[in-house]
């Protein structure tokens, strides 16, 4: 069977691929921003003296981590409208991915918080910092530095998860590849291009992350 690689189709449609890639990145950034807010809230909540916040956070984290992302996406987009919550495609996807990210980021931030040495907290208390000041000026800076690697890998993971947006017809990279595939039957070219774009982006982000980690190593 002969198959002649015709990259013409790719050249003509490359801007679609780039659009899809950019959209995917935007979705990932939006999701990690919202997810970080959720994760921070939950992580600090587990440090409270009362036990109820920890229990609730535990339920949230456990529920989300054991449920497939695709099910969450479909539920938010198709099932929530029955409860009166009707979100547009993009909002619904970002919402789903953010909730998903929040569960994983909660654990990342909890580990980061636990990595702040007890003695340093004692020193902060000893000079008279209030709990809030301690959290703001001592614990948070140290926590962020410690969390940097895990935050980076989570972001790369989330970027790959944006491919699921294709299932609800959001025109990101995977959707574009499938579209080109079914329209022009340039199967190998379409999927090779998409794969290369994903791969290149992930490698670039990982390289950037390594640079950041060198500049801001863990304490």
């Amino acid at each position, binding site marked *: 069977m002969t198959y002649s690689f015709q990259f013409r189709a790719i050249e003509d449609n490359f801007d679609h691929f780039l659009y899809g890639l950019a959209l995917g990145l935007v979705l990932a950034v939006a999701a990690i921003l919202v997810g970080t807010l959720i994760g921070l809230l939950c992580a600090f909540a587990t440090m409270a003296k009362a036990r109820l916040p920890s229990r609730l956070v535990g339920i949230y984290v456990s529920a989300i981590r054991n449920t497939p992302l695709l099910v969450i996406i479909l539920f938010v987009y198709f099932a929530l409208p029955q409860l009166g919550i009707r979100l547009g495609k993009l909002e619904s996807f970002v919402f789903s991915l953010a909730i998903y990210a929040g569960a994983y980021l909660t654990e990342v931030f909890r580990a980061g918080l636990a990595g702040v*040495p007890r*003695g*340093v907290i*004692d*020193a*902060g*208390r*000893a*000079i*008279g*910092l*209030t*709990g809030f*000041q301690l959290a703001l*000026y*001592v614990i948070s*800076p*140290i926590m962020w*530095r410690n969390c940097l690697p895990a935050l980076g890998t989570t972001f790369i993971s989330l970027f790959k998860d944006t491919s699921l947006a294709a299932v609800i017809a959001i025109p990101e990279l995977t959707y574009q590849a499938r579209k080109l595939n079914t329209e022009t039957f340039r199967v190998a070219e379409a999927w090779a291009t998409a794969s290369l774009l994903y791969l290149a982006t992930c490698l670039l982000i990982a390289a950037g992350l390594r640079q950041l980690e060198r500049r801001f190593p863990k*304490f």
Partner: protein
Amino acid sequence: MTLLAIRGLTKNFGQVEILKGVDLEVNKGEVVSIIGASGSGKTTLLRCVNLLEDFNGGEIILDRVAIGYTGEGGARRRFGERELARQRAMTGMVFQSFNLFPHLTALGNVMLGLTKVRHMAKREAQQLAMNWLARVGLADRATHLPAQLSGGQQQRVAIARALAMDPKLVLLDEITSALDPELVGEVLNTIKLLAKEGTTMLIVTHEMRFARDVAHRTIFMDGGLIAEQGPSASLFRNPKNARLKEFLKRANL
């Protein structure tokens, strides 16, 4: 004048009684050293004084004001976090493992309390912090991060950090135990200087010679109580308590 008065202090960790009723008075300008075996309650006592630990009974009176708790008996209530933080700023503490803030420079470490707790203007705080760093001999290391400093240097920054806050009383918890032997000297010299300048200090230490030479009074703690106390020179020369005698013998004094 009596700066610190501790009366009947008790502290439990769960079922275990760590402090069983400690009575202690420290005068302004006095240097008091606390010696004793591990587990005798020395560190716990210090941590109760600067309110890092809560205590179950008794009272601590700093400069004629009761700190930590108000009321007596049934009405005894721990102060709120805000008030506790304010009270903690009245004492300074230097820790065995330095506990410098790793994300701040030496200067930043000393300045944090000045700007956030004493609410000083940034320029003023920086000036004061630099003065203190100069006093501990580290003016040229002001912009270094803790990771770039030796153990002895880190501990001296910690001392500057505690003292810059102008505390009424300074608590030192085995501040040379985590240091390599050759670095111990520089830290002890700094403390000697402070003692000469009249800083009121409570020093928990294993360095017996240092305790004898620098402290006006020495206290021997055993099993959560003060077993013997007195002027340092005579306590070390003529210990009366049996366990203190044994303790000193084992320390080769």
